[in-house]
C-alpha cells in the first residue's frame, strides 16, 4: 500500500498504483506544517500591516526547513499581499492564515503547504448498511467541510481546480468520495500518475463506462466497445478538441477553421487500448456492503477473461501501441502519450492559472508555466507540485501584490463556492452549515456540477468583449440574486433556531462581528475590510454602507441582522466578486 504524502519528489518514471492508496492518513504534521496550516499567531503576535502598497514579497526558492523559527532572511509580506495570496491559494483568508503567509514569506508558505500530508474525507460514516437518509447530502458536504478547516488549504484548492478538469459523473456516494480522496491525494503528484489512478478508479470506471468496454466478440451479445471514457480522456482530461501550435493557439486549416487535435480513429484506437478492466473482486467469501458492489475503495484490475480485452496492436496519435501488452502496461503507455502531447501542457497550464490566479494570463506567463510542465527542474514531466509553484510565484501572478503595479488584465471571477467558503471561514465555521433538509448550505457544490461537463466551459468567451473569462457566464440574474442573500443565510438561522441552528452547530461564530458592529461602525468596517477586502474597504463601498445604515431596511431587534445584511451587500462589490 502506497502512503499518501508527505510527498516525495515525483519519480521520473510513471508509477502504477498497485493498491488503492486511499487509507485515511493520520495527521502527523511537521512543525512547519502546523505553522503553515494554522497560522502562527503565537510566533507572530498579530497581523499588523505595512499599510502601503509597497509590500515586498518573498519569492525564495528555499524549501521548508521544517523549523518553526521565523526565517530572518524572509522579507515580511504586507497584509494586502498576504491576503491576496490567501484568496488565490486557499478557500478564504483567516487572520491566522494571513499571519502565517506574512511570517513565512510567500514561497516559504507555499512550500510548507506543499509538504503537508493530504487531508482525506473520513469514509467511516459511509461504510454502513442500510444507507442512512442523509447519506447523499452528507456526501455532498464532505469535501466542502474539509475545504473549510483542513490545514492543507493549497492542496485542496488545487483539488477544487482539478475537479473542474477531471469531471466525473455522480454515482454511489461511497464511490464518489473515494474518487474525491484520490483526486486530493494525487493533486500534487505527476499529472500522469493522477491520470493513471483516475483511469483505474472504480467509480470512474463505472460512471464513464470503462467497465463494460470490450471488443465485439461472437457469442457475447453485450460485448461492444464503449467510446465514452476514451473520448472524455482525450477531450477533457488531456488534449482538448483543437490542435494547438507552439504558442498554445489553435492551428487553422487553409479555410481558417480550427484543426482537430485528434481524429475519430484515435477515439476508436484509444477505446480499444482501454479494454479489459473490471472491478476488483471482494476478498474470498465476497462479503461486502450492498452499496460497495463496485468495491469502490480498490482500483480496478485487469480482467482475466480474454474476451474482455482487445490484444491487437493500436496506433494512437501516430504512436504505435504494440500488441499483447497487459491492460496496465497499455494504460500507462497511452496515458504517457496523452500527457506528453503539447496540447495537454498548454491546456493544463491555462486551467491552473485560471483556477488560481487570473482568467487572462499573458502569453509569457502561460509559456513559463508550460515550461514548468515540461520539466520540473529535475527532468520530471507534469509535476503538479512544480506547476502550482510556478503558477503562484510567477512575477505576473505577484504583480498585483503591489496595487501600483497591478495589471488591467489581472484577476479572476470568484466562483460561487469560493464566495461561500470565504464567508464561512471568516466567521470560523468548522464545517458547512446545513439547509433545513440537511444538505450543505451551498449553491455550488464541488463535484456536483449541473452538467457533466462541469460548472463552466474553460474555452468560453464573454459576449461582446470575447474575453476568455470562463466563470462570466455563470454571473446571471439568478446567480446575483442568490449572492445578494448569501450572508443572510446565517441570519435566518440565528433568528429562527438560536440554539440548535445549523450555523452554530457548524461551529460558526458571528459574535465577534456583531459585537464590533454594536461598538462602532468603524470597528465593523475594519473587520469587513480585513476579512474580505485585504485590509480596507473601497471608499465608495464605505459610502454605500453608510447610506444603508441610515435607511435601516432590516429588523433592528435581531442583533445579527444589520451586520450580515451589510456583509451580503458588500460581497456583491466587484472588488470581492473579482479576485484581482
Amino acid at each position, binding site marked *: 500500500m502506497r502512503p499518501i504524502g508527505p510527498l516525495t519528489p515525483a519519480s521520473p518514471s510513471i508509477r502504477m498504483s498497485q493498491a488503492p492508496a486511499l487509507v485515511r492518513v493520520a495527521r502527523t504534521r511537521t512543525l512547519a506544517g502546523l505553522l503553515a496550516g494554522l497560522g502562527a499567531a503565537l510566533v507572530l503576535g498579530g497581523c499588523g500591516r505595512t499599510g502601503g502598497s509597497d509590500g515586498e514579497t518573498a519569492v525564495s526558492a528555499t524549501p521548508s526547513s521544517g523549523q518553526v523559527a521565523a526565517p530572518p532572511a524572509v522579507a515580511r509580506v504586507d497584509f494586502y499581499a498576504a491576503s491576496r495570496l490567501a484568496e488565490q491559494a486557499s478557500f478564504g483568508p483567516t487572520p491566522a492564515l494571513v499571519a502565517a503567509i506574512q511570517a513565512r514569506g510567500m514561497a516559504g508558505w507555499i512550500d510548507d503547504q506543499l509538504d503537508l500530508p493530504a487531508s482525506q474525507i473520513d469514509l467511516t460514516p459511509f461504510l454502513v448498511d442500510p444507507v442512512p437518509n442523509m447519506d447523499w447530502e452528507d456526501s455532498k458536504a464532505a469535501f466542502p467541510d474539509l475545504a473549510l478547516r483542513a490545514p492543507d488549504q493549497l492542496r485542496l484548492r488545487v483539488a477544487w481546480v482539478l475537479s473542474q478538469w477531471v469531471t466525473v459523473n455522480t454515482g454511489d456516494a461511497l464511490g464518489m468520495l473515494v474518487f474525491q480522496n484520490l483526486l486530493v491525494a494525487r493533486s500534487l503528484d505527476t499529472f500522469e500518475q493522477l491520470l493513471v489512478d483516475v483511469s483505474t478508479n472504480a467509480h470512474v470506471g463505472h460512471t464513464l463506462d470503462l467497465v463494460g*468496454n470490450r471488443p465485439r466478440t461472437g457469442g457475447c*451479445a453485450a*460485448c*461492444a466497445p464503449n467510446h465514452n471514457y476514451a473520448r472524455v480522456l482525450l477531450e477533457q482530461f488531456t488534449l482538448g*478538441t483543437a490542435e494547438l501550435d507552439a504558442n498554445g493557439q489553435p492551428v487553422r486549416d487553409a479555410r481558417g477553421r480550427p484543426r482537430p487535435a485528434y481524429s475519430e480513429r484515435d477515439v476508436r484506437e484509444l477505446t480499444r487500448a482501454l479494454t479489459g478492466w473490471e472491478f476488483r473482486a471482494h476478498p474470498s467469501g465476497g462479503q461486502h456492503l450492498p452499496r460497495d458492489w463496485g468495491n469502490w475503495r480498490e482500483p480496478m484490475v485487469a480482467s482475466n477473461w480474454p474476451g474482455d480485452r482487445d490484444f491487437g496492436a493500436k496506433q494512437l496519435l501516430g504512436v504505435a501501441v504494440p500488441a499483447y501488452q497487459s491492460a496496465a502496461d497499455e494504460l500507462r503507455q497511452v496515458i504517457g502519450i496523452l500527457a506528453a502531447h503539447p496540447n495537454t501542457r498548454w491546456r493544463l497550464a491555462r486551467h491552473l492559472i485560471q483556477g488560481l490566479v487570473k482568467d487572462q494570463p499573458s502569453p509569457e506567463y502561460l509559456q513559463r508555466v508550460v515550461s514548468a510542465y515540461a520539466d520540473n527542474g529535475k527532468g520530471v514531466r507534469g509535476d503538479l507540485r512544480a506547476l502550482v509553484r510556478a503558477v503562484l510565484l510567477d512575477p505576473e501572478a505577484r504583480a498585483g501584490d503591489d496595487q501600483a503595479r497591478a495589471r488591467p488584465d489581472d484577476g479572476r471571477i470568484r466562483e460561487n463556492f469560493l464566495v461561500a467558503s470565504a464567508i464561512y471561514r471568516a466567521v470560523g465555521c468548522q464545517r458547512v452549515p446545513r439547509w433545513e433538509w440537511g444538505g450543505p448550505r451551498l449553491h455550488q457544490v464541488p463535484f456536483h456540477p449541473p452538467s457533466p461537463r462541469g460548472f463552466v466551459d474553460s474555452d468560453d468567451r*464573454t459576449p461582446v468583449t470575447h474575453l476568455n473569462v470562463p466563470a462570466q457566464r455563470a*454571473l446571471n*440574474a439568478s446567480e*446575483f440574486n442568490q449572492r445578494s442573500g448569501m450572508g443572510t443565510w446565517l441570519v435566518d438561522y440565528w433568528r429562527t433556531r438560536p440554539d440548535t441552528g445549523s450555523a452554530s452547530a457548524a461551529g460558526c461564530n458571528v459574535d465577534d462581528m456583531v459585537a464590533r458592529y454594536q461598538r462602532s461602525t468603524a470597528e465593523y468596517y475594519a473587520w469587513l475590510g480585513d476579512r474580505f477586502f485585504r485590509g480596507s474597504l473601497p471608499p465608495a463601498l464605505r459610502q454605500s454602507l453608510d447610506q444603508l445604515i441610515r435607511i435601516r431596511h432590516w429588523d433592528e431587534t435581531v442583533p445579527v441582522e444589520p451586520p450580515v445584511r451589510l456583509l451580503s451587500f458588500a460581497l456583491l462589490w466587484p472588488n470581492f466578486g473579482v479576485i484581482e
Partner: protein
Amino acid sequence: MSTRRTLLKGLGSAAGLGALGLSAALLPRAARTADADFRALVVVMLEGGLDGHHVLVPTDHGYGDYLASRGADLAVARSDLIDLPGQPAGRSFGMHRRLSPLRTLYQQGRLGFIANVGPLVRPVTAAAVRGGTAEVPAMLFSHRHQSGLVQGALDLGDSSGWGGRALEALPPTLRHDLAAIGLSPTVNQLLHGRRSNLALGGNGFSPWWSMADLRSADNRATQAYRRLAQTQSTNAIRGEYQRALSAALEDSAALTEPLVNGSEATGDFGNRDVGRQLQIAASLLPHLRQQGRRRQLVLASDGGYDHHRHQIGNLPEVFEQLGRALSAFDAAVRAAGLDNQVVTLVMSEFGRTLRHSGGRWDHEAGSDHGWGNHWWLMGGPVVGGTVHGPFPSLVLGGADDGDPDGAGVLVPTTSSDQVAAALVRWLGVHAEMLPEVFPDLVNFPTTPLPLLRA
C-alpha cells in the same frame, strides 16, 4: 461600447429616473399597446445527445432494419411504440409511449418532426463521409463543440449563436433590449449576439435582492444596488463583472413581475427542471407581449440524455417528465391567447449510434455519440402531424451511415442551419440578412423548409 442596454439606459436617464421597473412605461407609444404582431420562439435544448431512435421509430418495413441494427436490448419494443396517424411520404411511424402527450399534439397537427437534422457545412453523402472526402464541420461528436454548432457557433473565439445574431438582424421596429431570455442553467450560446447579451439567465431570479425590491426605483436599497453596479473600473475582469451585475439588476426589475404577482402559468409541468423553465417561459411571454414587445427568443434546457449505458432503463422516465413539461407549456400558451404566436423547437447536440455500445450486461445497453438526429417543432404555427425531410435508412453500413465501422452514425440530410433559418424568418429576419446569421446557408438550396405556416 454598444450593448443591448442602450435603449433602456437612454430612456431611463432622459426621464431622470432609474429605468428599473419603469421600462414598460417608457417604451414608445406604438410599442406599448398589446400588439397582435407578437412572435416568440422557444428552444428546448436536450443536453447530452438525445437518442432520436428512441423517440421516432418507423413501424413499417423499417422496423425490421431498426431491430436488426439496434438489437433487442436497445431497440424500443414494438409494444412500447404508439402509432402516429397518417403516412408521411408513404411511411408509418410510432413514438415512444412515454411521450404520449406529444402524440396528442401530433394528432392535432400542432407537432411535427424533422428527420435526420444535424450541423453541416454543405450537403454531403454518407459514402463521401465514409471515404473521408466530404467537407464536414470540425470536431463532430464532441458534446461541447456539436452543442455549439447547433446553437450557431462560428468559431472558437466567437461566443455568438444563431438566435442572438438573428435578433440583431431583425428590422429595427421589431428589435428590443430584452428579446433574448435565457432560462437554462447550463447553455446559452444560442442567445448571444455579436453586439448584445441575453437577459436573465438561470431560473432562480426574483425582484427581491436581500433588502431591495428592484421593481421600486425609489426604494433606497435598490438605489444602493444601482450605485454598486455603476462603479467604474479600469480592470477588464471587473468590467465583465460589472456588466453582468448591471444587466442582472435591470432584467430582474423588468421581467420578474409575473413570477411574483400570482399570475404564473399553471399546469402539470412535471418534476424536472425543464418543466420549471417552461413554466417561467409561459408566465413571461404574455407579460412581454403586454409590455408591447414584439419578438422573443427563449432558451430552456434539459439534461441527462447522454446514455452510453442503461438507456432502456433510464430514458422512459425522462420522457414522461419531458412530455408533461412540453404539453403543459403548449396548454399554457394557448390559455394565454398566444396559440398562433409561439413556436417551440426541441433539439439536441447530436443523435446517437444505431448500434449499441458496451455495458457489463445485456440490459445495460446504451449508444455512442452520433450525428444526425430527429428534432421536433410544436405550436399553432407549425406544419404538424407529419415528418419533414427524408427519413434515413436504419441499416448499419447502409445508405445513411457515415461511420467507416458501420456503427450507424446518421449523416444529416437536413442542416440544423436550414431548420433555424426557417424559424428566424418566421420571426421576421429578411432573407437577405440570413447570411449574416448563417454563413454556411449559401451552400444549401434557397427555398425555406416548409416547417411553419406562412
